[in-house]
């Protein structure tokens, strides 16, 4: 920690700007946050814990949320600017430092605007109320006669009587208590304070430009990859090809000729190298000769083996989300029954910048720079790993590349901490591409089994949906252990987190309906590279693919237009029906049953629809595809999506996220699958695990449905959910081939065409 402080002082003297992010704002020494100091967490009942106003009027917000590259900090800044009535460009989001920020829970699940938004809004409303009180005394007027514009309080009808926020409190503390009950996502902040009426909003609802974007476009932005601290060394970890087995020999002589080698580190089964330079560390990690013991856990040999295991293994818990009537009985009474099984493969987050962290571990304290989604969770994980009290670990967030859930499992900070402790110096670790592709915790495979029955009128009277899949067993800080912890012998004390449970047809109302998501045990004696972690819209993509494909299958069999068929079951779901209506209108959907009449050309066009609800954000999706009947190649030509996430904070920022979800979703639907056999992961680079490239990107049209009367909900990932389903349905429409396994590769399409 000492080195860091030294560096900050150097920065303030203008001599060492290396570790400090680009910003135009006052340094922390000018701020009046009630800084509790190391070892004591910020107290959410102190208004000063939330924000501070500098003498120049800048408002610094000590949010416990981070920007993962989605632009959410800009949205949160808008919320604070709105509530305080200060110009948007006067808001400075401080960046998360666990010694300063309030714990608002992990940044995940598209819950930041939904949960942290109101927390910050209410804190800002409390600050505004306090500022008005101060202004009333200063201006000798009652608070009800005061108005605020651009951070200046004036008396109504007498604008020359005014005082700025900066004059009232700049550089000073509020020293005011507010209410804050509960913790993390569920914390309720100052609910008794009346916030601004939505109809008076001028900043929320506008497309403010992303705060940090210019610096990202010039190389001036400090990502975690760019953090350098004095005396910093470089480390790399050497992991076994398959499973975290034990190193039976580590031949240090194999690397001793590498100039700049500092140390070969072995602790339990954890092996790494530390060198003076990054290049030396890369070479040393590559050349270090390590023999590994025969693993105690068997790595699955194929995807078929995984799906068989999922199907035949007793679940940990069934996660029943809908249980209505009696689907079993109704199935026996049905006029016609349907049954299908859908497969979704292991997929990668595939962050463009492999994991990176800088750790400085001393005898009693540690400082970690990390792109983690949960700085406090990383703090706990690293403290457990090092045997330190949590208060002795400080985590400073620095943005990583987009991670889509991967950074909920902050493996690399543990690696860096172990290597730093071994050499007594700060160490930067970045994973190599094969490490990231091989060992990242993956979005797990899912096997979805569905049965349904219709009566004589073609109405669905029975629906039984089971999404069988794995819990997420790699996450920081919750009794689950990451790679380094497991390699030094720490055992997990939990069986994993849910991969979600919604989206198995629960948007529709059927007379007899069951939706469940049984979790199949997946904690092994030794960690295999088929680790599981949150991957954008966890589990929802597969569940939507299965349930929305199945709806399409029934509609097609009954010769009913797929949109009309869905509408029949959305009666009470007004937002669902409106999102569906909005997307088909934009797409100029022609009512008819699928598949389309056989096309005479080599490229068959088709359209498909799907709807989704993730965390109450509703999407309607229409995909238009062209299927090349000779090669089996699927081209997604146009994608239309309607999106209802309640009140919209920043329309362009939201569109940026939706476009990203569509493009990433097309990629995951068409080409992404982690391949493996019993010797390890076979998709260790971008050639073996291809993702979408520019020539394959579809045209995109987005319909935003704004609901100012509703709370603001998440936009970071919900629109991922319906993409694959809409594409699968479009493929069926084009060529009459029903794909029940993703990705929709040319081989699978051709195999389907041959069968048809």
């Amino acid at each position, binding site marked *: 920690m000492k080195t860091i402080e030294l560096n900050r002082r150097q920065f303030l003297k203008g001599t060492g700007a290396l570790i400090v992010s680009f910003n135009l704002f006052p340094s922390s020494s000018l701020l009046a946050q009630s800084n509790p100091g190391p070892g004591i967490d910020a107290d959410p009942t102190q208004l000063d814990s939330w924000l501070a106003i500098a003498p120049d009027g800048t408002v610094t917000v000590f949010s416990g949320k981070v920007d993962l590259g989605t632009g959410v900090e800009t949205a949160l800044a808008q919320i604070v600017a709105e509530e305080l009535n200060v110009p948007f460009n006067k808001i400075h989001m401080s960046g998360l430092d666990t010694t300063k920020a309030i714990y608002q829970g992990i940044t995940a699940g598209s819950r930041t605007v939904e949960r942290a938004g109101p927390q910050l809004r209410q804190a800002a409303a409390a600050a505004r109320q306090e500022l008005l009180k101060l202004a009333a005394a200063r201006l000798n007027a009652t608070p009800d006669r005061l108005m605020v514009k651009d951070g200046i309080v004036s008396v109504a009808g007498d604008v020359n009587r005014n005082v700025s926020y900066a004059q009232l409190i700049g550089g000073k503390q509020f020293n005011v208590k507010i209410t804050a009950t509960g913790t993390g996502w569920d914390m309720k902040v100052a609910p008794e304070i009346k916030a601004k009426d939505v109809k008076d909003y001028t900043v929320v609802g506008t497309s403010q*430009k992303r705060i940090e974007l210019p610096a990202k476009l010039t190389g001036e932005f400090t990502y975690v*990859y760019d953090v350098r601290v004095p005396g910093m060394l470089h480390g790399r970890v050497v992991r076994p090809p398959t499973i975290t087995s034990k190193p039976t020999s580590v031949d240090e002589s194999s690397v001793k000729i590498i100039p700049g080698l500092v140390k070969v580190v072995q602790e339990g089964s954890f092996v790494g190298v530390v060198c003076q330079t990054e*290049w030396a560390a890369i070479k040393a990690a590559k050349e270090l000769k390590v023999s590994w013991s025969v693993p105690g856990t068997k790595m699955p040999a194929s995807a078929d083996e995984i799906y068989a295991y999922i199907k035949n293994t007793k679940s940990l818990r069934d996660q029943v989300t809908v249980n209505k009537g009696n689907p079993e009985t109704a199935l026996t009474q049905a006029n016609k029954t349907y049954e299908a099984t859908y497969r979704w493969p292991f997929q990668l987050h595939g962050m463009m*910048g492999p994991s990176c962290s800088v750790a400085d571990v001393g005898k009693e304290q540690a400082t970690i720079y990390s792109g983690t989604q949960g700085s406090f969770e990383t703090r706990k994980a690293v403290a457990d790993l090092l045997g330190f009290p949590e208060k002795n670990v400080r985590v400073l967030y620095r943005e990583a590349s987009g991670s889509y859930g991967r950074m909920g499992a902050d493996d690399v900070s543990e690696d860096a901490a172990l290597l730093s402790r071994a050499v007594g110096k700060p160490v930067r670790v970045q994973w190599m591409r094969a490490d990231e592709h091989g060992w990242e915790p993956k979005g797990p495979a899912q096997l979805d089994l569905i049965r349904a029955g219709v009566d004589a009128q073609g109405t669905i009277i029975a629906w039984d949906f089971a999404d069988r899949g794995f819990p997420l067993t790699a996450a920081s800080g919750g009794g689950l252990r990451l790679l380094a912890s497991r390699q030094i012998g720490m055992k997990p004390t939990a069986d994993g987190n849910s991969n979600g449970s919604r989206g198995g047809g629960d948007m529709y109302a059927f007379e007899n309906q069951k939706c469940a998501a049984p979790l199949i045990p997946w904690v092994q004696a030794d960690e295999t590279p088929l680790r599981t972690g949150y991957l954008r819209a966890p589990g929802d993509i597969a569940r939507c693919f299965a349930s929305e494909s199945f709806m399409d299958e029934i509609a097609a069999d009954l010769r009913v237009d797929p949109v009309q068929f869905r509408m029949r079951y959305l009666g009470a779901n007004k937002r669902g029906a409106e999102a569906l209506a909005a997307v088909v209108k934009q797409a100029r959907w022609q009512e008819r049953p699928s598949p389309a009449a056989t096309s005479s050309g080599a490229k068959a066009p088709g359209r498909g629809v799907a709807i989704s609800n993730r965390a109450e954000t509703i999407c309607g999706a229409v995909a238009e595809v062209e299927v090349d009947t000779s090669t089996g190649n699927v081209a997604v030509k146009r994608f239309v999506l309607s999106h209802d996430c309640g009140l919209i904070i920043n329309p362009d920022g939201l569109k940026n996220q939706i476009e990203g979800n569509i493009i990433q979703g097309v990629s995951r639907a068409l080409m992404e699958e982690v391949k493996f056999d019993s010797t390890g992961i076979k998709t260790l680079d971008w050639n073996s695990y291809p993702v979408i490239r520019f020539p394959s990107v579809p045209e995109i049209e987005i319909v935003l449905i704004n609901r100012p009367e509703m709370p603001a909900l998440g936009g970071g990932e919900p629109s991922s959910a319906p993409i694959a389903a809409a594409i699968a349905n479009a493929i069926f429409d084009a060529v009459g081939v029903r794909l029940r396994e993703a990705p929709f590769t040319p081989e699978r399409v051709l195999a389907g065409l041959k069968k048809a």
Partner: protein
Amino acid sequence: MARLTLKVNGKNQTVDVEPEMPLLYALRNDLQLNGPKFGCGLSQCGACTVIMDGNAIRSCVTPVGAAQNKSVTTLEGLGNVKKLHKIQQAFVDEQAAQCGYCINGMIMSTKALLDKTPKPSDSQIKEALAGNLCRCGTHIRILRAVKRASGQLA
């Protein structure tokens, strides 16, 4: 180890490195230019792209020794926040980034493209950027930004 002189962003700079080390590490660690990023080390993703003698190259697989006597331009050589290059300005105007990790490569590939083809067609742009991966899915905005930078968008 060898003492090499590199011409980067118009300035001659000396580095003590192994000549076979990829240029990327000399730029990032020796010259502390954070624009180029490590993405794969395999010339597969484009995050490390710099311009060498007019061509967009992958600095993660180019030995630093091969950059001697050549002119290297990095993202920092284009503009800065106070004075953005027109390509950077176009990316701001189109809000053409999410996490921004790939953007170095997008901008440098665009620079090399526009230097040779000032008014590229859509398919020329897609072709020129086909080797640059973006995981956030910002492609459509990037395409618009390139059109804007080439003066083909109002």
